């Protein structure tokens, strides 16, 4: 993995510190061209990896990349699936079965419908594979060497103790996409222990890592202990603690942990992109 991963929160009005800022972002990135412009600026700064959710609008970005293959030579995407709010809102309104009906591709659900619920209930793993394939469709033709599951799903599986799902996901992503499975989590130490117990060695785990312990469940001490002692490939996110930290002190802190492989960050202006990227290259 490269040291610097460019994120997409800023494009989709995700701002953990201010709802107002998030609205301003949603206005600024109203059209796809404005997203692509910022991505291109990040590429000009030498950032060759875009880590993004499977938001509907990413499909347009993918289309642009495929149509301009030469310009995007060597460019990689790390998909993070699923874009959870789309499912969460659907479950509130339609229930779990209704959501499955809505999001499992039509003809495939037809196949399920034949066997009815009995068939579905026997084949959760098949359902998982179908959902992964549906989410991955937009990336066909693009290099996706690491495929992440979003924290909401990872942490749900972790809390429900449905650990085999991790093992199945891991195997499927390796086999079908020849990619490294990645895990985003808000509970890094607990997740590491579970993956370790499943025999998943040296996993890619993306979690909040910042000097003030923001969104580091269980406390900063145990995170630091795991970063120092356990064998895994950490990706740091929320490194600025939603803006509570200045970039220099934030990245300097990450430099204390030799094992951190990559830092995920998002920014909307060239100067911020350059500043953060330079700091990461300096300290990591």
């Amino acid at each position, binding site marked *: 993995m490269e040291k610097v991963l460019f994120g997409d929160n800023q494009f989709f009005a995700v701002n953990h*510190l201010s*709802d107002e800022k998030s609205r301003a972002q949603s206005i600024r990135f109203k059209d796809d061209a404005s997203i692509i412009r910022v991505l291109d600026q990040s590429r000009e700064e030498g950032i060759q990896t875009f880590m993004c959710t499977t938001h509907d609008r990413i499909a347009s970005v993918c289309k642009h990349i495929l149509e301009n293959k030469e310009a995007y030579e060597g460019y990689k995407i790390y998909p993070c699936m699923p874009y959870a709010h789309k499912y969460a*809102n659907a479950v509130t309104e339609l*229930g779990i079965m*209704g959501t499955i009906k809505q999001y499992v591709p039509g003809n495939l659900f037809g196949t399920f419908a034949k066997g009815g619920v009995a068939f579905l209930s026997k084949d*959760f793993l098949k359902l998982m594979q179908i959902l992964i394939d549906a989410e991955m469709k937009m990336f066909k033709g693009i290099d996706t060497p690491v495929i992440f599951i979003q924290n909401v799903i990872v942490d749900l599986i972790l809390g429900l*103790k449905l650990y085999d799902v991790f093992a199945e996901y891991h195997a499927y992503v390796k086999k079908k996409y020849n990619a490294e499975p990645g895990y985003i989590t808000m*509970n890094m130490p607990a997740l590491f222990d579970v993956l370790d117990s499943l025999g998943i060695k040296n996993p890619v785990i993306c979690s909040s890592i910042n000097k003030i312990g923001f969104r580091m469940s269980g406390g900063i001490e145990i995170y630091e202990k795991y970063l120092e002692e356990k064998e895994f490939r950490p990706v740091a996110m929320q490194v600025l603690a939603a803006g509570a930290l200045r970039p220099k002190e934030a990245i300097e802190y990450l430099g204390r942990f030799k094992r951190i492989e990559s830092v995920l960050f998002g920014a909307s202006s060239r100067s911020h992109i350059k500043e953060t990227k330079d700091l990461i290259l300096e300290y990591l």
Partner: protein
Amino acid sequence: MIKGAIIGLGKMGISHAAIVGAHPEVDMVALCDTSSLVLSGFKKFSKVKTYSDYQKMIDNEELDFVVIATPTKFHYPMVKYALEKNINVFCEKPFMLKTSEGDEMVELAKSKGLVNQVGFHNHFIGTFRELKRLLDAKVLGDLVHFSGEAYGPVVTKEKGGTWRSNAEEGGGCLFDYASHVINLVQEIIGRPTKARGTLLKSIYSKGVEDAVYSLLELESGLTGTLLVNWSDETYRKMSTSLMIQGKNGKIICDATEIKIYLKEEVPAEKLGKGWTIKYITDFAIPVDFYLRGEEYSAQIDHFVESVKSKKMASYNTFEQANYTDVVIDMIIENSK
């Protein structure tokens, strides 16, 4: 270790199951739902016992508590059954369809001395806690107006079909989004005693409202607005806020930040004249397991701690939740 179980595995129930399941001081012994699909998933991948009949589950298992996250119309019989068997109860909101049933459950829980809590999770968001503290410290002086608002993209197309499109089953925006705002207003600013000029608007739903607009009068005499719309796709997810105006300024608070404007400084709070912005990073309640926001874990932590220490929960009691249902009734009555 205390023993708990979950009844109802929809969005909230599954989320509670994960949080309870990850809790270091709880043994989550059983889950109950009527969907064979959902249950078979747990049978296949986890070791937890599954039931399709909540009474059987309560009878067979030795439980310290249950979490009830079924559609609202089932709350009354389920809460009652659990309390009668001396089991502490965490119930999802809205609490009951009828306030008379709510009154009965408040009394039953009290007479049995059982811990009772309802899932109004906003009270476990640090910024709203800080807002209450600042109001109690009277930084705004005499209050003149408030506005409680929530917007989000739940129903953005015309269709119906689940219990959420049935007003009698508590399916509309009033029981869902608006109940959160009413509960916040009620516990942070003051209890509403009158609703005026209410508009319940259907936008895409049939049979239920997608927006609630009402003027509320509190027991203190303070008046303000309730503005809620769950068919607003300019919001990425539910966004809830309170604005309070006083003679000495104004506070706007949501889940991420608290913006304070003061005409005169309040030295005791180290708040100067003009704007002060504080962020959730300073107020987030630390949790051991995070799923969708600290507040969801923090409310379960609070409940578990109350059950363990046999001390009544101080946030989100049945009584408080039932009062929210009283206000919902006022709003419905006023809209007629």
